[in-house]
C-alpha cells in the first residue's frame, strides 16, 4: 500500500500541471488576483470621493446660504449655466453630456423659517449610475443646514432641547447583544469557510484522481499493475491515500496562504477585527475544524477514485467529476442559509452536518458531544465508500470496459 502511495506521490510531484494547480495557484496567483481587485476598487472609490465635480445652481437667489456653503467645498466647482433653463429635459441633457456633474435646483420657498416655508424640496439632477458620491457630499452640507433650521424653528415654537430630541426621534431601540464578537462574525463568515474548504479539497483531489485511475487505464499501465502480486486492496488504498493527501494539501495550502495574506493585509491596513477574531478561535477549535475535514476528504477521494477507475479515459473521468462539484455545493450551501442550525434532521445530513459543525466551531458554540456523532457517522460513510472502491476494483466490468 505505501509502495503504491509513494510511487503515485512521486509521479504527482513531477507533474508540473498538478503542482501548478495545487501550489502556485493558491499561494501566489489567487492572492495577487484578489489583492489586485481590492486595490483597484479602493483606488476607484477614493478617487470618486476626492474628484472635483462641476455643478450648477438654479434658483440661487432663493437659497444664498446653501449656495455659499456649496461654494466653500473645495472639491466642488460652481459653473455658470444659462439660468433661464426651465425645461427639465434641457437640464438632464446638460448632465448627460457631461457639461456639469450635477445641477441643484433650489425652490422658491427655500428658507430657514420652516414653520412658514413648509417642506423644502431640492431637486438634484445627476447621473446616479456613476461612481462619484454626489449625494454623500451634498448630504454633509444639507444635514448641517437642516439641523440648524430645525433648531431655530423649534426654538421659535418654544420647544426646549429635550423635547426636541424626543420629537425628532420619539422611540429608540437600544440593542443589548448577548452574542460576543466571535459568535457574531462566526455567524456571518462561519458558513463560508467550510464551503471554501470543501470545494478546495474536491478541486485539489480531482486532477490527481483523474490521472491515477482513468489516466493509468488510458496509458495501459493499469493492467500491468493489476497483474503484480499485490492485493487489489493495497492498490486501492495506495491510490486513495494519494488522492486524499493531494486534496487535503491543496486545501491546507490555500487556507494557509489566505490566512497569511489576510494577516499581512489586516496588519497593513490595521483591521483589528480580523486579527482579534482569529485570536479568539482557540487552537483546539482550529485543530477540530481540520479533524472534521479528514472524513470529508476521504469521502471525496473514494468517490473520485471510483469515478476515475470507471472512466475509459482522462477526459471521460473529468466529465464524470465535474457534476460532483454541484453535488457537493448544494449540501454545503444549505449550511450557509441563516435559519439552518445543527439540530434535528440537519445533524444527520452528510456534508451539511460537517459544514454546520465547522461553522459552530468557528462561532465557538459547538456542542462537543455532538461532534463525536458527526465525526463518527462521516467516518462510517467514508469507510463505506472506500470499501465500495475496493469492491469496484475487483469488478472486471469496471476495469476492462
Amino acid at each position, binding site marked *: 500500500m505505501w*509502495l503504491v502511495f509513494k510511487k503515485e506521490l512521486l509521479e504527482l510531484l*513531477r507533474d508540473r500541471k498538478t503542482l501548478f494547480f495545487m501550489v502556485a495557484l493558491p499561494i501566489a496567483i489567487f492572492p495577487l488576483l484578489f489583492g489586485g481587485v481590492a486595490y483597484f476598487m479602493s483606488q476607484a472609490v477614493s478617487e470618486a470621493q476626492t474628484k472635483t465635480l462641476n455643478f450648477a445652481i438654479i434658483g440661487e437667489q432663493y437659497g444664498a446660504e446653501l449656495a455659499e456653503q456649496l461654494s466653500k467645498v473645495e472639491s466642488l466647482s460652481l459653473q455658470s449655466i444659462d439660468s433661464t433653463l426651465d425645461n427639465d429635459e434641457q437640464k438632464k441633457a446638460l448632465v448627460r453630456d457631461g457639461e456639469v456633474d450635477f445641477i441643484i435646483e433650489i425652490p422658491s420657498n427655500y428658507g430657514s423659517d420652516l414653520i412658514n416655508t413648509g417642506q423644502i424640496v431640492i431637486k438634484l439632477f445627476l447621473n446616479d449610475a456613476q461612481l462619484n458620491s454626489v449625494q454623500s457630499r451634498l448630504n454633509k452640507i444639507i444635514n448641517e443646514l437642516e439641523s440648524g433650521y430645525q433648531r431655530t424653528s423649534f426654538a421659535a415654537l418654544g420647544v426646549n432641547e429635550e423635547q426636541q430630541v424626543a420629537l425628532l426621534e420619539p422611540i429608540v431601540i437600544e440593542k443589548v447583544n448577548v452574542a460576543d464578537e466571535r459568535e457574531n462574525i462566526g455567524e456571518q463568515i462561519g458558513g463560508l469557510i467550510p464551503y471554501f474548504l470543501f470545494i478546495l479539497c474536491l478541486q485539489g483531489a480531482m486532477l490527481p484522481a483523474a490521472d491515477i485511475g482513468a489516466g493509468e487505464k488510458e*496509458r495501459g*499501465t493499469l*493492467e500491468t*499493475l493489476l497483474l*503484480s*502480486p499485490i492485493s487489489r486492496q493495497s492498490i486501492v488504498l495506495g491510490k486513495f491515500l494519494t488522492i486524499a493527501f493531494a486534496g487535503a494539501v491543496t486545501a491546507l495550502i490555500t487556507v494557509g496562504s489566505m490566512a497569511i495574506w489576510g494577516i499581512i493585509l489586516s496588519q497593513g491596513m490595521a483591521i483589528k477585527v480580523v486579527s482579534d477574531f482569529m485570536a479568539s478561535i482557540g487552537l483546539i477549535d482550529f485543530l477540530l475544524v481540520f479533524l472534521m475535514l479528514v472524513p470529508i476528504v476521504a469521502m471525496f477521494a473514494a468517490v473520485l477514485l471510483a469515478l476515475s477507475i470507471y472512466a475509459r479515459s482522462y477526459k471521460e473521468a473529468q466529465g464524470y467529476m465535474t457534476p460532483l462539484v454541484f453535488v457537493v455545493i448544494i449540501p454545503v450551501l444549505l449550511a450557509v442559509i441563516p435559519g439552518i442550525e445543527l439540530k434535528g434532521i440537519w445533524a444527520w445530513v452528510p456534508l451539511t452536518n460537517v459544514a454546520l459543525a465547522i461553522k459552530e466551531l468557528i462561532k465557538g458554540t459547538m456542542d462537543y458531544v455532538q461532534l463525536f456523532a458527526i465525526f463518527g457517522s462521516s467516518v462510517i460513510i467514508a469507510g463505506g465508500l472506500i470499501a465500495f472502491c475496493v469492491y469496484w476494483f475487483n469488478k472486471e466490468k469496471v476495469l476492462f470496459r
Partner: protein
Amino acid sequence: MIAISGLAKKFRVENPKKLSAQDKKDPRLEGRFFHSVKDVSMRCEKGQVLALLGPNGAGKTTTLRMLSTALQPDAGSMFIGDTDVIKDPVAARKKIGFLSGSTGLYGRLTGRENIAYFGRLNAMSDQEIEARITMLGEKLDMMSFLDRRSETFSTGMKQKTSIARAVIHSPEVIVLDEPTTGLDIMAAKTVIDFIKDLKAQSVPVIFSTHHLEEVTELCDSVTVIDHGETTFDGSLDAFKALSNEGLHASFMASLKQGVA
C-alpha cells in the same frame, strides 16, 4: 510448464439491441451473454515457445488475460507448473511475466524507476532490483537512457523498458499479448530477440500474434483459436503439414478444420 484446458469466459451484454448486425450473427451470442471464450485448451512445455493464432475477436486476448489472472474464467483449469492459477492467483502472478502491445509506462518516472516499481511490487529487495536492472540494462542495451523520464523515450526504448519491467522478477513463464503489433521493425526485432533469449534459457513463452513469419522463426508449437474454441493445437510441423501451400493456407485450413 503451462497447461490450460476447457477454459471458458462469458461477458454480460448490457444492451443486446445495440449490437451491430455482424455481432448478432456471431454464434457465441446467447441471450444476454456473449461467450467470448468457449473451450480453449493448450499446453506449453518447459523451453517451448507457443504461438497463439486466430482472427481478430477470436478470444486470444481474453484467454491471455485469464491466464495472467486479470480476468476470472467461468470454467476450465489453468496450471503454471503445479500452481493452480484460478485458486491461487497471487502466487500465479509471481510466476508470470506479462506484456502486451498496448502496455504503457509511467511517463513521469524514469525508466529505472518504472522497472524498480514493479520489482518492489513483486516484493524484491532494493539490492536484488539494482542487480537485476544492471543485468537487463546491459543485455537489452538500455543503460544510456535508463535514467531519463520515460515520456521522452522512442517506441523502441519504451518496448525495451516494458520488457525489462515484465521480467524484473525472473518469472517462470512469459505471456505476451500481440507484443509486436504496432511496433516498427527495430522495436519488433527487440521483442523477437528477447523471446529467442528466453527460449535459450528454456523459459516457456506463450505469445499471440498476427505475423506468421514470427511463428516460423520462433515457435515450437501452435494453437489456433476461432470463435472462442481451439481449432488446432499441435507442433509447428503438424501445423505446416495442414497445407502444402504455405503457412497462410495452413492457417486457413486450421480454421476450417474446427468448423467441420
